[in-house]
Protein backbone atom coordinates (compact mmCIF):
# COMPACT_ATOMS: atom_id res chain seq x y z
CA UNK A 1 0.00 0.00 0.00
CA UNK A 2 1.27 3.46 -0.89
CA UNK A 3 1.17 6.12 1.83
CA UNK A 4 -0.23 9.56 0.96
CA UNK A 5 3.32 10.97 1.09
CA UNK A 6 4.49 8.21 -1.25
CA UNK A 7 1.59 8.84 -3.62
CA UNK A 8 2.35 12.57 -3.62
CA UNK A 9 6.00 11.88 -4.32
CA UNK A 10 5.05 9.60 -7.23
CA UNK A 11 2.70 12.27 -8.56
CA UNK A 12 5.48 14.87 -8.41
CA UNK A 13 7.80 12.53 -10.31
CA UNK A 14 5.06 12.00 -12.92
CA UNK A 15 4.54 15.75 -13.30
CA UNK A 16 8.29 16.31 -13.71
CA UNK A 17 8.37 13.67 -16.45
CA UNK A 18 5.38 15.29 -18.20
CA UNK A 19 7.11 18.68 -18.16
CA UNK A 20 10.47 17.28 -19.24
CA UNK A 21 8.88 15.37 -22.13
CA UNK A 22 6.82 18.38 -23.20
CA UNK A 23 9.84 20.68 -23.19
CA UNK A 24 12.02 18.12 -25.01
CA UNK A 25 9.36 17.63 -27.73
CA UNK A 26 8.95 21.40 -28.13
CA UNK A 27 12.71 22.00 -28.41
CA UNK A 28 12.92 19.09 -30.85
CA UNK A 29 10.21 20.65 -33.06
CA UNK A 30 11.97 24.05 -33.03
CA UNK A 31 15.24 22.35 -33.87
CA UNK A 32 13.69 20.39 -36.78
CA UNK A 33 11.94 23.34 -38.40
CA UNK A 34 14.21 26.27 -37.47
CA UNK A 35 17.73 25.17 -36.52
CA UNK A 36 18.69 22.20 -38.68
CA UNK A 37 19.83 22.95 -42.28
CA UNK A 38 18.01 21.51 -45.30
CA UNK A 39 19.68 18.44 -46.75
CA UNK A 40 21.30 19.04 -50.17
CA UNK A 41 20.04 16.09 -52.24
CA UNK A 42 16.62 15.26 -50.78
CA UNK A 43 15.63 18.78 -49.74
CA UNK A 44 12.99 19.60 -47.16
CA UNK A 45 11.44 16.09 -47.17
CA UNK A 46 14.55 14.73 -45.43
CA UNK A 47 13.28 16.39 -42.22
CA UNK A 48 10.87 13.45 -41.90
CA UNK A 49 13.94 11.55 -40.67
CA UNK A 50 13.69 13.39 -37.32
CA UNK A 51 10.28 11.74 -36.72
CA UNK A 52 10.74 8.50 -38.63
CA UNK A 53 13.98 7.38 -36.94
CA UNK A 54 12.86 8.24 -33.35
CA UNK A 55 9.57 6.37 -33.94
CA UNK A 56 11.60 3.36 -35.12
CA UNK A 57 13.94 3.69 -32.12
CA UNK A 58 11.03 3.91 -29.69
CA UNK A 59 9.29 0.87 -31.16
CA UNK A 60 12.50 -1.21 -31.13
CA UNK A 61 13.20 -0.13 -27.56
CA UNK A 62 9.62 -1.01 -26.56
CA UNK A 63 9.97 -4.45 -28.16
CA UNK A 64 13.30 -4.92 -26.39
CA UNK A 65 11.51 -4.27 -23.08
CA UNK A 66 8.87 -6.85 -24.14
CA UNK A 67 11.70 -9.31 -24.85
CA UNK A 68 13.42 -8.81 -21.47
CA UNK A 69 10.18 -8.74 -19.45
CA UNK A 70 8.84 -11.84 -21.24
CA UNK A 71 12.00 -13.76 -20.35
CA UNK A 72 11.70 -12.59 -16.74
CA UNK A 73 8.00 -13.54 -16.68
CA UNK A 74 8.70 -17.06 -17.96
CA UNK A 75 11.57 -17.44 -15.52
CA UNK A 76 10.16 -15.89 -12.32
CA UNK A 77 6.43 -16.33 -13.06
CA UNK A 78 5.69 -12.94 -11.55
CA UNK A 79 2.68 -11.01 -12.89
CA UNK A 80 4.64 -7.72 -12.63
CA UNK A 81 6.86 -8.68 -15.59
CA UNK A 82 3.86 -9.71 -17.63
CA UNK A 83 2.29 -6.28 -17.02
CA UNK A 84 5.44 -4.49 -18.22
CA UNK A 85 5.70 -6.69 -21.33
CA UNK A 86 2.05 -6.17 -22.26
CA UNK A 87 2.23 -2.40 -21.67
CA UNK A 88 5.41 -2.03 -23.71
CA UNK A 89 4.08 -4.11 -26.64
CA UNK A 90 1.11 -1.75 -27.04
CA UNK A 91 3.38 1.30 -27.19
CA UNK A 92 5.74 -0.50 -29.60
CA UNK A 93 2.89 -1.31 -32.00
CA UNK A 94 1.66 2.32 -32.00
CA UNK A 95 5.11 3.65 -32.88
CA UNK A 96 5.86 0.86 -35.35
CA UNK A 97 2.60 1.87 -37.10
CA UNK A 98 3.90 5.46 -37.27
CA UNK A 99 7.15 4.15 -38.81
CA UNK A 100 5.13 2.29 -41.45
CA UNK A 101 3.12 5.46 -42.17
CA UNK A 102 5.93 8.04 -42.23
CA UNK A 103 8.25 5.74 -44.25
CA UNK A 104 6.01 5.60 -47.35
CA UNK A 105 5.31 9.37 -47.10
CA UNK A 106 9.09 9.91 -47.25
CA UNK A 107 9.57 7.26 -49.95
CA UNK A 108 6.95 8.56 -52.41
CA UNK A 109 8.77 11.73 -53.53
CA UNK A 110 12.27 10.17 -53.24
CA UNK A 111 11.79 6.65 -54.70
CA UNK A 112 8.69 7.42 -56.76
CA UNK A 113 6.74 4.67 -54.95
CA UNK A 114 4.88 4.47 -51.66
CA UNK A 115 6.10 0.96 -50.93
CA UNK A 116 8.70 -1.49 -52.25
CA UNK A 117 9.10 -5.05 -51.03
CA UNK A 118 12.73 -4.69 -50.04
CA UNK A 119 14.26 -6.45 -47.02
CA UNK A 120 14.07 -3.53 -44.57
CA UNK A 121 10.48 -2.57 -45.29
CA UNK A 122 9.19 -6.13 -45.46
CA UNK A 123 10.91 -7.22 -42.24
CA UNK A 124 9.54 -4.13 -40.44
CA UNK A 125 6.03 -5.01 -41.64
CA UNK A 126 6.55 -8.58 -40.35
CA UNK A 127 7.66 -7.17 -36.98
CA UNK A 128 4.49 -5.07 -36.80
CA UNK A 129 2.33 -8.10 -37.68
CA UNK A 130 4.04 -10.25 -35.00
CA UNK A 131 3.32 -7.74 -32.25
CA UNK A 132 -0.23 -7.08 -33.49
CA UNK A 133 -0.71 -10.87 -33.15
CA UNK A 134 0.84 -10.61 -29.66
CA UNK A 135 -1.73 -7.96 -28.66
CA UNK A 136 -4.57 -10.01 -30.14
CA UNK A 137 -3.42 -12.99 -28.10
CA UNK A 138 -3.17 -10.83 -24.99
CA UNK A 139 -6.67 -9.47 -25.54
CA UNK A 140 -7.97 -13.01 -25.02
CA UNK A 141 -5.71 -14.02 -22.16
CA UNK A 142 -6.21 -13.79 -18.43
CA UNK A 143 -3.38 -13.20 -15.99
CA UNK A 144 -1.51 -16.37 -15.16
CA UNK A 145 -3.12 -18.42 -17.91
CA UNK A 146 -1.28 -20.45 -20.54
CA UNK A 147 -2.08 -17.77 -23.12
CA UNK A 148 0.02 -15.25 -21.15
CA UNK A 149 2.91 -17.70 -21.49
CA UNK A 150 2.28 -18.15 -25.22
CA UNK A 151 2.24 -14.37 -25.57
CA UNK A 152 5.58 -14.18 -23.72
CA UNK A 153 7.08 -16.72 -26.12
CA UNK A 154 5.75 -14.70 -29.08
CA UNK A 155 7.19 -11.53 -27.51
CA UNK A 156 10.62 -13.17 -27.32
CA UNK A 157 10.53 -14.68 -30.83
CA UNK A 158 9.24 -11.42 -32.33
CA UNK A 159 12.22 -9.49 -30.99
CA UNK A 160 14.65 -11.76 -32.84
CA UNK A 161 13.45 -10.03 -36.02
CA UNK A 162 14.97 -6.69 -34.93
CA UNK A 163 18.68 -7.52 -35.54
CA UNK A 164 17.56 -8.89 -38.92
CA UNK A 165 15.83 -5.54 -39.67
CA UNK A 166 18.97 -3.62 -38.66
CA UNK A 167 21.38 -5.67 -40.74
CA UNK A 168 19.04 -6.15 -43.73
CA UNK A 169 20.33 -2.97 -45.42
CA UNK A 170 23.91 -4.23 -45.08
CA UNK A 171 23.26 -7.83 -46.18
CA UNK A 172 21.17 -7.01 -49.25
CA UNK A 173 20.90 -4.22 -51.79
CA UNK A 174 17.85 -2.29 -50.65
CA UNK A 175 16.05 0.92 -51.55
CA UNK A 176 16.23 1.90 -47.91
CA UNK A 177 19.36 3.96 -47.12
CA UNK A 178 22.23 2.46 -45.12
CA UNK A 179 22.81 3.50 -41.48
CA UNK A 180 24.03 7.09 -41.18
CA UNK A 181 24.61 7.38 -37.43
CA UNK A 182 26.60 4.23 -36.67
CA UNK A 183 28.92 3.54 -39.60
CA UNK A 184 32.27 1.81 -40.13
CA UNK A 185 33.99 5.20 -39.81
CA UNK A 186 32.52 5.77 -36.34
CA UNK A 187 29.46 7.22 -34.66
CA UNK A 188 27.94 10.21 -36.43
CA UNK A 189 30.75 10.60 -38.97
CA UNK A 190 28.37 10.44 -41.93
CA UNK A 191 26.22 13.36 -40.75
CA UNK A 192 26.40 17.10 -40.29
CA UNK A 193 26.90 17.88 -36.53
CA UNK A 194 23.71 20.00 -36.38
CA UNK A 195 21.71 17.16 -37.98
CA UNK A 196 23.24 14.69 -35.56
CA UNK A 197 22.42 16.96 -32.60
CA UNK A 198 18.79 17.34 -33.76
CA UNK A 199 18.44 13.61 -34.27
CA UNK A 200 19.96 12.98 -30.83
CA UNK A 201 17.52 15.47 -29.29
CA UNK A 202 14.59 13.76 -31.07
CA UNK A 203 15.72 10.36 -29.80
CA UNK A 204 15.94 11.71 -26.21
CA UNK A 205 12.50 13.36 -26.48
CA UNK A 206 10.90 10.15 -27.78
CA UNK A 207 12.62 8.06 -25.10
CA UNK A 208 11.13 10.35 -22.42
CA UNK A 209 7.76 9.98 -24.16
CA UNK A 210 8.13 6.19 -23.95
CA UNK A 211 8.62 6.31 -20.17
CA UNK A 212 5.65 8.66 -19.81
CA UNK A 213 3.38 6.37 -21.84
CA UNK A 214 4.74 3.30 -20.09
CA UNK A 215 3.78 4.80 -16.70
CA UNK A 216 0.20 5.30 -17.86
CA UNK A 217 -0.08 1.84 -19.48
CA UNK A 218 1.33 0.07 -16.41
CA UNK A 219 -1.09 2.02 -14.19
CA UNK A 220 -3.94 0.88 -16.45
CA UNK A 221 -2.97 -2.79 -16.17
CA UNK A 222 -2.62 -2.51 -12.38
CA UNK A 223 -6.07 -0.92 -12.03
CA UNK A 224 -7.52 -3.73 -14.20
CA UNK A 225 -5.86 -6.30 -11.92
CA UNK A 226 -7.28 -4.63 -8.81
CA UNK A 227 -10.78 -4.55 -10.34
CA UNK A 228 -10.52 -8.27 -11.19
CA UNK A 229 -9.33 -9.01 -7.65
CA UNK A 230 -12.23 -7.10 -6.08
CA UNK A 231 -14.74 -8.71 -8.47
CA UNK A 232 -13.50 -12.17 -7.45
CA UNK A 233 -13.69 -11.12 -3.78
CA UNK A 234 -17.28 -9.93 -4.33
CA UNK A 235 -18.17 -13.17 -6.13
CA UNK A 236 -16.81 -15.42 -3.38
CA UNK A 237 -18.34 -13.36 -0.57
CA UNK A 238 -21.84 -13.47 -2.13
Amino acid at each position, binding site marked *: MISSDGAEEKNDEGNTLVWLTGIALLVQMISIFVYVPTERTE*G*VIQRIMYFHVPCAWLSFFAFFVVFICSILFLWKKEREWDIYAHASAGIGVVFCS*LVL*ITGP*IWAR*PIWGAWWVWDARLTSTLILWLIYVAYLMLRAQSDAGSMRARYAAVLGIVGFLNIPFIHFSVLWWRTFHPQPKVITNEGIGKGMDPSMLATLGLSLCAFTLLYFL*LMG*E*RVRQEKIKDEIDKLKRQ*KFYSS
Partner: protein
Amino acid sequence: MDNLGFLFAANVFVWCGIIYYVYTLKQRNRALEKDLDLLKETLSKEGS
Protein backbone atom coordinates in the same frame (compact mmCIF):
# COMPACT_ATOMS: atom_id res chain seq x y z
CA MET B 1 9.99 23.21 -51.62
CA ASP B 2 7.68 20.91 -53.63
CA ASN B 3 7.68 18.22 -50.97
CA LEU B 4 6.45 20.42 -48.16
CA GLY B 5 3.03 18.72 -48.36
CA PHE B 6 4.59 15.32 -47.69
CA LEU B 7 6.55 16.69 -44.73
CA PHE B 8 3.39 18.29 -43.38
CA ALA B 9 1.42 15.04 -43.83
CA ALA B 10 4.06 12.98 -41.99
CA ASN B 11 4.17 15.54 -39.18
CA VAL B 12 0.37 15.54 -38.86
CA PHE B 13 0.22 11.72 -38.78
CA VAL B 14 2.88 11.48 -36.06
CA TRP B 15 1.39 14.15 -33.79
CA CYS B 16 -2.22 13.14 -34.32
CA GLY B 17 -1.24 9.52 -33.64
CA ILE B 18 0.59 10.40 -30.42
CA ILE B 19 -2.10 12.82 -29.17
CA TYR B 20 -4.90 10.34 -29.94
CA TYR B 21 -3.02 7.53 -28.14
CA VAL B 22 -2.35 9.69 -25.04
CA TYR B 23 -5.98 10.88 -25.04
CA THR B 24 -7.46 7.36 -25.24
CA LEU B 25 -5.02 6.13 -22.60
CA LYS B 26 -6.03 8.91 -20.19
CA GLN B 27 -9.75 8.38 -20.88
CA ARG B 28 -9.48 4.63 -20.31
CA ASN B 29 -7.53 5.12 -17.07
CA ARG B 30 -10.11 7.62 -15.83
CA ALA B 31 -12.98 5.21 -16.62
CA LEU B 32 -11.18 2.33 -14.90
CA GLU B 33 -10.48 4.44 -11.80
CA LYS B 34 -14.17 5.32 -11.64
CA ASP B 35 -15.10 1.62 -11.88
CA LEU B 36 -12.61 0.77 -9.16
CA ASP B 37 -13.96 3.43 -6.79
CA LEU B 38 -17.52 2.26 -7.44
CA LEU B 39 -16.58 -1.35 -6.77
CA LYS B 40 -14.77 -0.44 -3.55
CA GLU B 41 -17.79 1.56 -2.41
CA THR B 42 -20.17 -1.34 -3.16
CA LEU B 43 -17.94 -3.80 -1.31
CA SER B 44 -17.62 -1.56 1.75
CA LYS B 45 -21.42 -1.08 1.82
CA GLU B 46 -21.95 -4.82 1.60
CA GLY B 47 -19.37 -5.39 4.34
CA SER B 48 -20.95 -2.95 6.80
